[in-house]
């Protein structure tokens, strides 16, 4: 894992101290709310429906056991015993008191964490494939470049007042688990014909009220030039991105208005200018130094499988189901990647209690796991587990109520906090997600349905990625009453697409039945081996729409 150098440590400490003074001045009345709000937002502190909310950055979704324990401690001492993992792989705490937030920042600094740039119109936390460094078929670990981007973008003087927020994600396999085409900048690690690794750079993806799949701007950007190229993109955006209308201020609007060719041309002009000065050339020795922090653990030379593992699969149907949905092949023989579902039926998607966080840290210590990952799908991941340890790890997860065998299945729902917590929301999302989970709780049925990604947001801002859901659900407000629109055919993966809106929304007591009718329609239409997404792409909206609105149509007569 990356360790802070003296500059990182100093920067984070100083920021915590500065915020302490700012909070003191606010409480004394030396700062008005209008003056204080931009300062608190730059430190990830929001004021929401019931309380403040503090967003903690988890850079590229990687945490150590020590950090996880500290997150548990903060949840216990400063929140109400739980935290929420977000679709940006961050951690959010509700209920902190304003005067105590500086203490939380100090505790985070103790474990090399912070809340810097988790809000506001700046470059936000950089995210990566949550299987980085472990998954087969990866060209290289994307996290060293994420760390370099983090250092370049933190307090970058030119990009602290962008037209709007700016999000970057990096992936390094053909399968895209980081939703790169839905980010302001998405980067895919690729290899050119000469065998050099570099980056394919996408710009202008995004969700919200105007969803777009990103445009390919850089076909191949060399490693040493990537910061110069990113800086060139940010410069074009900073200069020409709209500041007159918040709904048109993201880079997606500019990029799609100019088109890929013109946007690329402008970036190339800036890129040539930056390169001429040579200031942002990435020295190979610095890259090596950062890469060394992310070196994989020394993998033991193990047989492909382990007798303990095979015996447990035979003996325990629960474990067998879990291995089917929650394990991913590892690049090293005898190892597996284990996804820890935060979607246990009856729990808020993405929430973890302090006891669960402590329990996970304990598992990490007991089994010698250096890292745990946070995924944008609001799950956690143990990236390197010996297969022979899997039955014991699973038993420990079960004891923490974290053994749900539903990763990638219909109850593995991405869900924003919605109107239960969020000031921006129009409708609740968590109760609907929980009712859907209850409806589809039968594990056999879930496995039989295969990969179905339901993603749900409580407002048009789309924190719950509903545009990218195979089934997307958007909560809307009609005269103070909650309604839910269905979208079909979205994907945030390598086959990215924006979901199509089915029609008018369903009431909160109708939406679960409507989704079930959509799913049953898929079952009746699917070709062998076809996922819901593929069936939808083959047959289109009509049969799903007819089924979903069936009862309403009868009701109308």
């Amino acid at each position: 894992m990356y360790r802070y150098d003296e500059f990182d440590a100093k920067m984070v400490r100083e920021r915590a101290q500065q915020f302490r003074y700012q909070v003191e001045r606010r409480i004394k009345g030396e700062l008005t709310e209008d003056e204080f709000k931009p300062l608190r937002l730059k430190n990830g502190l929001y004021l929401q429906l019931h309380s403040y909310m503090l967003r903690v950055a988890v850079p590229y979704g990687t945490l150590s056991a020590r950090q996880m324990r500290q997150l548990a401690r903060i949840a216990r001492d400063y929140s109400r015993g739980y935290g929420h993992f977000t679709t940006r792989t961050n951690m959010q705490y509700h209920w902190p008191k304003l005067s105590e937030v500086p203490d939380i920042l100090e505790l985070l600094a103790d474990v090399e964490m912070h809340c810097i740039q988790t809000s506001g119109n700046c470059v936000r936390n950089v995210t990566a494939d949550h299987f980085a460094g472990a998954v087969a078929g990866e060209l290289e670990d994307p996290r060293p470049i994420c760390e370099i981007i983090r250092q370049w973008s933190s307090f970058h003087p030119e990009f602290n007042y962008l037209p709007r927020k700016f999000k970057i994600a990096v992936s390094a396999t053909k399968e895209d688990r980081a939703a790169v085409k839905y980010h302001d900048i998405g980067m895919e690690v690729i290899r050119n014909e000469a065998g050099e690794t570099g980056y394919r750079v996408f710009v202008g993806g995004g969700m919200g009220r105007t969803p777009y799949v990103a445009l390919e701007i850089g076909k191949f950007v060399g490693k040493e030039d990537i910061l110069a190229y990113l800086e060139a993109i940010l410069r074009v955006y900073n200069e020409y991105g709209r500041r007159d209308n918040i709904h048109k201020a993201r880079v997606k609007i500019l990029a799609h208005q100019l088109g890929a060719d013109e946007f690329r041309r402008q970036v190339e002009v800036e890129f040539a200018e930056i390169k001429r000065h040579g200031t942002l050339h990435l020295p190979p020795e610095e890259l090596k130094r950062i890469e060394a922090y992310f070196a994989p653990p020394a993998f033991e030379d193990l047989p492909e499988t382990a007798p303990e593992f095979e015996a447990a699969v035979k003996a325990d149907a629960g474990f067998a189901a879990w291995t089917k949905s929650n394990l991913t092949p590892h690049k090293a023989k005898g190892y597996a990647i284990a996804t820890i579902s935060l979607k246990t039926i009856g729990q808020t998607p993405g929430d973890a209690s302090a006891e669960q966080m402590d329990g996970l840290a304990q598992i990490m210590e007991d089994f010698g796991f250096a890292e745990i990952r946070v995924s944008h799908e609001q799950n956690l991941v143990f990236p390197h587990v010996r297969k022979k340890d899997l039955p014991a790890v699973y038993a420990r997860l079960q004891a923490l109520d974290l053994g749900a065998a539903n990763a990638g299945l219909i109850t593995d729902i991405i869900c924003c906090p919605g109107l239960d917590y969020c000031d921006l929301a129009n409708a609740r999302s968590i109760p609907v997600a929980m009712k859907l989970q209850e409806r589809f709780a039968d594990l056999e049925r879930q496995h039989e349905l295969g990969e179905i990604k339901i993603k749900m947001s409580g407002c048009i801002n789309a924190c719950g990625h509903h545009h990218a859901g195979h089934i997307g659900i958007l909560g809307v407000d009609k005269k103070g009453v909650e309604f839910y629109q269905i979208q079909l055919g979205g994907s945030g993966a390598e086959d990215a697409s924006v979901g199509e809106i089915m029609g008018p929304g369903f009431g909160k007591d109708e939406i679960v039945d409507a989704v079930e009718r959509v799913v049953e329609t898929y079952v009746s239409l699917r070709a062998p081996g076809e996922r819901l997404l593929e069936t939808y792409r083959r047959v289109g909206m009509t049969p799903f729409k007819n089924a979903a609105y069936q009862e309403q149509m009868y009701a109308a007569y």
Partner: protein
Amino acid sequence: MLTANRLLDGEVVYWQGGDWQPDFAAAEIFDEAEAAKAALDAAQAFVRDNKVVGTYLFEVRKEANRVAPVKEREIIRSLGPSVRRDMGKQALMPAPPAAAKPVRETSPPYPPPYPEEPDVSI
């Protein structure tokens, strides 16, 4: 009704008799827009004094023996998250008779659905 969040901890507070207090049931109801506007003006002293932030008026509906906010947002603010009944103001209220369900089906103590044209006060 007139509401805000307390500066120090973000707690939802309601206007009552020239000051703020956290209990929805004790909040002052304004039948006339003028009186509501006057309270909103008076409340600005507390904003300047750094006690509360985000003051605004919202609509409530009078029923036989209780008062309910018109919008779901204000129902949730007055109670706490509907998915965590152990959090927020509702945690301090007496438990409803059938408290076993983890998810709040309706939004007690207010019964939806709302009428199309509610009898609205502020």
